[in-house]
């Protein structure tokens, strides 16, 4: 959510486009724009005649000229990035010279750069619902995972596997159904696994946008639930070197984290800029109100480098990032069989409640992700632009199980049970044509090539290679108040699996009994409309389709998924999943109020989901919970939105709501694992400046999560499965497996201030999550059968800018 102060009052004037009488005499206004302090001429400053909606920019000589202005009284608004916007009132009765001398922005005034145009930009951003987290929003969440960072946004919830693994859930969908774009490249890890968190450095992003709902036309397959766009901050304009140091400490799990950013330009080569950034996070066992969650620590080291060349013909940007982490998986969640699971479900406390430790033992995960993104934006003349993006990713995921088969040397545990390496190349070309009348649009080509290789002791998914190609065309018709858009896309994907391991499906693949080569292709489309029906209000509606081929795990999984002890079986006959999404979004930006409210209906045909089987998998190690990939038509409906109200000058009240209902049409019952209803209500109070502290605030937030009452039930068969070693545990399991835990409410508080430290700008934020140290278990926590979620967490964040760094 943007919580910037917006000078809304410009807006009302801005939209009243004056009707110009042709008979009137016409005049010229001209002048120059300078820096008030240095007298330097400013090139590219914008001059707007507010009443006419007309404007121009200063040329290389720092001057501007506006011809053919009818007689009248006008507000001339002059703005330039990094400077205070200035407005002059002119009574134009003859040609007139109006000079502007702009003052640079002090720290306190930066937010005022958000102008009336910004309001329009927000109101007319997209016919779909988009939530944006700006750098200052993100700064309040530094050191937390992507899922935790986004969890307060309307429509976003979190699928959690212990404190160190979390994935964002957008409108009830997650994993392969939510596309993550990192630096313009679609993030490809083993995102199918519910306990496989996105490999994203929590310190590298300066802006995150969550586009909710289907978006296949622009992004191809997988964007059924939404798209999360993560962007590093733009490179600096100046050559001077500057940077930022961020340090934070988390009380709950003794997490320490730090990030350093350094950026600048290269003087001899005009337009060449660079940035280096690195971060480190280290944490031990997280604490619930009553015990420690043993083996939930992690150690994460990330690095990124960016360089860009900006010229008048376009710009080039190269980005490299490396993410690497080693993280423990809750020791008590490592269970043997169904009897163990049931005894965990019946316990009040987990099996292990040892004292705090930093050690990362078995079971654990070791993950690294390298990403190279090369982007070019080329002006082709006549306002045509061509955007080229290439991405290379190497994702290595190693999962180490605590269990080694009988009689095997314990040192074998050092060989991962799963060891997957995924290479991905992505390329995209997007040609945006010059506006034709009111039409703006783009044509594009996209391709992805992947190969996945197993090295582990066992395998859950086979090796595979895949090739995906797509072509798309999108047009929008834009007027002052209306934006109409439509797009169409065709994608084809061919995928070839080669068996690894000796599971039943692997053997069937080997013998050619099931298809190893699969071809999927589909056409998707979208139409949308956006209407700004008043200066402060707009409404958007969208009809979009999206698709997703069944992923490799859904087709070919066969084996025990370590760490969760569930036996998962794929279905090689699964068909393409297709969604048909209708949504509407109402937006408002007023002087004291802001609102965004969406309603949606996402009908998905051939929805693929993992469902527990009543019949467990009998092995010599006992019965294992068995899960199977099933496919049925489903529909997800919901509402989400936020509302902000500045009650007094210094006091802002805000709320954010996420409701989703999922229905499995095929089975005639609620969809499994849908997020609980969630309401966040809070108040933000700006405190007066004192003791050299500026922008001091106090924020109180409550999160209310209702118990999920929409869930499928399993029914006990009339006759128990044969060969069960523990029938009682089995019955308890069937009756309780799908039951959601109780609802809960959490209180959070945050206090922040900016001050000057060693003549540099510093920000300090002290916050507490789960302030009252409540015991709770979330329905979407995969450890809800084993342990409580984390208790009180007191977090201190310090951010220090240095050199020529400006936080704009």
């Amino acid at each position: 959510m943007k919580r910037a102060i917006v000078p809304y009052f410009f807006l009302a004037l801005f939209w009243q486009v004056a009707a110009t009488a042709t008979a009137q005499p016409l005049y010229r206004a001209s002048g120059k724009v300078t820096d008030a302090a240095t007298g330097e001429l400013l090139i590219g400053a914008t001059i707007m005649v507010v009443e006419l909606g007309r404007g121009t920019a200063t040329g290389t000589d720092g001057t501007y000229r506006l011809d053919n202005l009818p007689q009248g009284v006008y507000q001339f608004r002059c703005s330039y990035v990094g400077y205070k916007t200035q407005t002059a009132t002119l009574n134009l009765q003859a040609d007139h010279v109006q000079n502007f001398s702009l003052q640079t922005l002090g720290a306190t005034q930066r937010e005022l750069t958000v102008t009336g145009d910004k309001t329009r930009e927000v109101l007319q951003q997209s016919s779909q619902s988009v939530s944006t987290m700006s750098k200052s929003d993100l700064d309040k969440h530094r050191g937390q995972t992507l899922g935790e960072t986004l969890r307060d946004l309307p429509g976003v919830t979190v699928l959690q596997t212990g404190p160190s693994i979390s994935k964002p859930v957008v409108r009830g969908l997650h994993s392969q159904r939510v596309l993550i774009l990192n630096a313009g490249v679609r993030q490809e890890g083993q995102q199918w696994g519910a306990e496989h968190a996105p490999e994203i450095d929590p310190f590298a992003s300066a802006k995150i946008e969550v586009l909710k709902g289907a978006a296949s036309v622009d992004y191809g397959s997988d964007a059924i639930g939404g798209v999360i766009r993560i962007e590093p901050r733009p490179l600096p304009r100046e050559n001077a070197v500057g940077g930022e140091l961020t340090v934070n400490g988390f009380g709950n799990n003794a997490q320490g984290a730090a990030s350093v950013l350094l950026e600048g330009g290269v003087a001899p080569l005009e337009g060449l800029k660079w940035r280096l950034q690195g971060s480190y996070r280290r944490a031990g066992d997280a604490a619930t109100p009553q015990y420690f969650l043993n083996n939930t620590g992690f150690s994460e080291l990330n690095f990124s480098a960016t360089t860009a060349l900006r010229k008048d013909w376009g710009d080039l940007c190269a980005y490299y990032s490396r993410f690497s982490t080693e993280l423990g998986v809750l020791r008590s969640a490592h269970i043997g069989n169904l009897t163990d699971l049931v005894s965990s479900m019946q316990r009040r406390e987990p099996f292990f409640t040892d004292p705090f430790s930093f050690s990362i033992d078995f079971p654990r995960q070791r993950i690294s992700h390298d990403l190279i993104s090369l982007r070019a934006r080329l002006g082709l003349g006549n306002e045509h632009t061509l955007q080229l993006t290439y991405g290379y990713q190497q994702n290595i995921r190693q999962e180490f199980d605590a269990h080694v088969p009988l009689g095997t040397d314990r040192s074998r545990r050092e060989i991962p049970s799963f060891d997957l390496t995924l290479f991905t190349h992505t390329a995209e070309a997007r040609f945006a044509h010059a506006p034709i009348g009111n039409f703006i649009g783009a044509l594009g080509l996209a391709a992805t090539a992947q190969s996945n290789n197993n090295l582990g002791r066992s395998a859950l998914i086979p090796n595979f290679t895949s090739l995906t190609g797509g072509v798309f065309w999108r047009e929008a018709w834009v007027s002052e108040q209306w934006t109409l858009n439509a797009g169409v896309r065709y994608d084809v994907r061919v995928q070839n699996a080669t068996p690894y391991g000796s599971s039943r499906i692997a053997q069937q693949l080997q013998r050619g009994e099931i298809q190893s080569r699969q071809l999927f292709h589909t056409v998707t489309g979208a139409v949308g409309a956006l209407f700004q029906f008043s200066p402060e209000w707009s409404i958007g509606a969208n009809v979009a389709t999206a698709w997703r081929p069944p992923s490799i795990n859904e087709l070919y999984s066969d084996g025990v998924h370590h760490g969760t002890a569930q036996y998962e079986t794929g279905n090689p006959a699964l068909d393409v999943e297709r969604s048909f999404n209708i949504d509407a979004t109402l937006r408002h930006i007023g002087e004291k109020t802001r609102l965004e409210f969406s309603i949606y209906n996402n009908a998905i045909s051939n929805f693929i989901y993992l469902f527990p089987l009543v019949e467990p998998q009998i092995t010599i190690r006992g019965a294992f919970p068995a899960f199977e990939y099933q496919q049925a038509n489903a529909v997800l409906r919901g509402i989400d939105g936020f509302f902000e109200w500045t009650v007094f000058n210094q006091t802002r009240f805000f709320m954010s709501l996420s409701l989703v209902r999922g229905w499995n049409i095929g089975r005639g019952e609620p969809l499994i694992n849908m997020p609980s209803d969630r309401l966040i209500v809070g108040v933000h109070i700006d405190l007066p400046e004192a003791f050299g502290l500026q922008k001091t605030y106090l924020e109180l937030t409550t999160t209310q999560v209702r118990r999920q009452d929409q869930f499928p039930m399993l029914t006990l068969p009339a006759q128990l499965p044969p060969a069960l070693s523990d029938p009682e545990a089995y019955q308890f399991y069937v009756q309780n497996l799908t039951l959601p835990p109780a609802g809960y409410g959490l209180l959070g508080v945050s206090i922040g201030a900016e001050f000057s430290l060693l003549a540099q700008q510093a920000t300090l934020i002290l916050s507490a999550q789960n302030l009252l140290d409540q015991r709770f278990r979330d329905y979407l926590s995969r450890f809800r059968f084993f342990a409580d979620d984390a208790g009180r967490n007191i977090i201190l964040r310090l951010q220090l800018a240095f050199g020529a760094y400006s936080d704009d």
Partner: protein
Amino acid sequence: MLSLNLQFIRKKNPAAILLALALLSLVGGCRRTDNPVETNEQESITTMRLTLTPVGGGAPITAQWRDLDGAGGNPPVITPLALRAGTTYNGTVEVLDESKTPAENKTAEILEEANEHLFVYTVSGGAQGRVNITVTDLDTNTPPLPVGLQYRVVVTAGAAASGNLRVILYHYDGVRKTVNPSNEIDIDASFPLNVTP
């Protein structure tokens, strides 16, 4: 793009050099995708066999739990344990991997790691109370703890009964062995059990 980078290197741009190095290290750091070791490992027990020899003499009886194709696929084949009322047996247990040829006997490995393993035998159903099983062998822990590779089965005299025998092999992996369950289970299998007068 690469040629562009090289130009920057010639101009000694530190950022470009760093980026190029990063790119190079990445290319150099690419993983092998062929298998360095034999890593294709599955759960290696297919069979558990109980052999009970009557103390007073007579032919031994056996019961077997066997799942040759491992987890998934065909269900296990289990032969029940047929006991005679008023009889005492000396029992042994054997654990095999019959997916290999020749079959591998895993019993010796358990014996070798006896200080980290414990078999627990539990009778349930109508035979509960009629069939009593006590473990007779001890490991070399101090004090010595039961292992359960050998045990004694006492069936009291009386009418016919049936029930279930559950055999669990606990593994105390990296934790101190006790007579309580560990959270690491190597085997958990059940046999139908019948007592005839």
